[in-house]
């Protein structure tokens, strides 16, 4: 499975939005994710990809595409 579909799957599960509503351009604001949603998403990503994401890096994550790009740069 590609990083993109894995990431979309995790976001869809964590934030309870259907995968077909997620494109790289979708921002977390678009899908009404609050700061705790983002923290929970990061926890799930850290677990899935066995990595640690710093607070500073979390701040730069605004859209689904940001997450995909970030994960792709690390794995």
């Amino acid at each position, binding site marked *: 499975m590609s990083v993109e579909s894995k990431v979309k799957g995790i976001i869809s599960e964590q934030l309870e939005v259907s995968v077909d509503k997620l494109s790289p351009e979708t921002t977390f604001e678009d899908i009404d994710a*609050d700061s*705790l949603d983002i*923290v*929970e998403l990061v*926890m799930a990503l850290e677990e899935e990809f066995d990595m640690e994401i710093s607070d500073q890096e979390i701040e730069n994550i605004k859209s689904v595409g940001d997450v995909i790009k970030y994960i792709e740069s690390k794995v």
Partner: protein
Amino acid sequence: MELSGKCAIVTGASRGIGRACAISLAKAGASVVINYSQNKEAAEEVLKTIEECGGSAAIVKANVSQYTECEEIVKCAIDHFKRIDILINNAGITRDNLLARMKAEEWQEVIDVNLNGVYNCCKAVIRPLLKQKSGGRIINIASVAGIHGNSGQANYAAAKGGVIAFTRTMAKELGSRDITVNAVAPGFIETEMTDNLSDAVKEKIMDQVALKRFGKPEDVAEVVTFLASSASYVTGQVIAVDGNLSM
């Protein structure tokens, strides 16, 4: 029973208020993780008492002022009971002294256990709690000293006041996940912690208690169990269990 299938962690559960909370939660059906820091025999006695009542529990040694040891408490809960629903931050110490004579270590030790311990345990518990997605209950044992202040307890009162502010903040952060966070503020409760006060001091305190008796650990445990089992629309509150002590 109302708490069957739930797992509760109680820190400092070998004696006093923690012990009473552990037993009361177990009687309500919860599986209990009994944390202690020094008195293993007392912790085992609590375990035995719970098992004799038909409850289930496990004991784990940990000093809550150390984060890595708090992770052990969480591990114990997951290993034995596969989940965590309730955290009772009860572990606490006193190093009473007037400020003019209070040593830096006396200040620090109390802050480390009574305030940092609450942060450490909440921090260790929060990930599994969020991941379970089934809500949760955090109850912090504060003190009336943390509300009114108490001469000779600058360290203790500061830590407990900190716990109260922490409680109110956590209630806001975690409310959207159905995790309630409340504090119970005991007044004068008959435990080892209050045992060594002089009779003169005890008499003076008694004068200020409307109910004209000192509290028992069970009086506090009752309120804690209520917050842990019912009270689903109560969060961010500080409930004094003090017989109306006017400090």
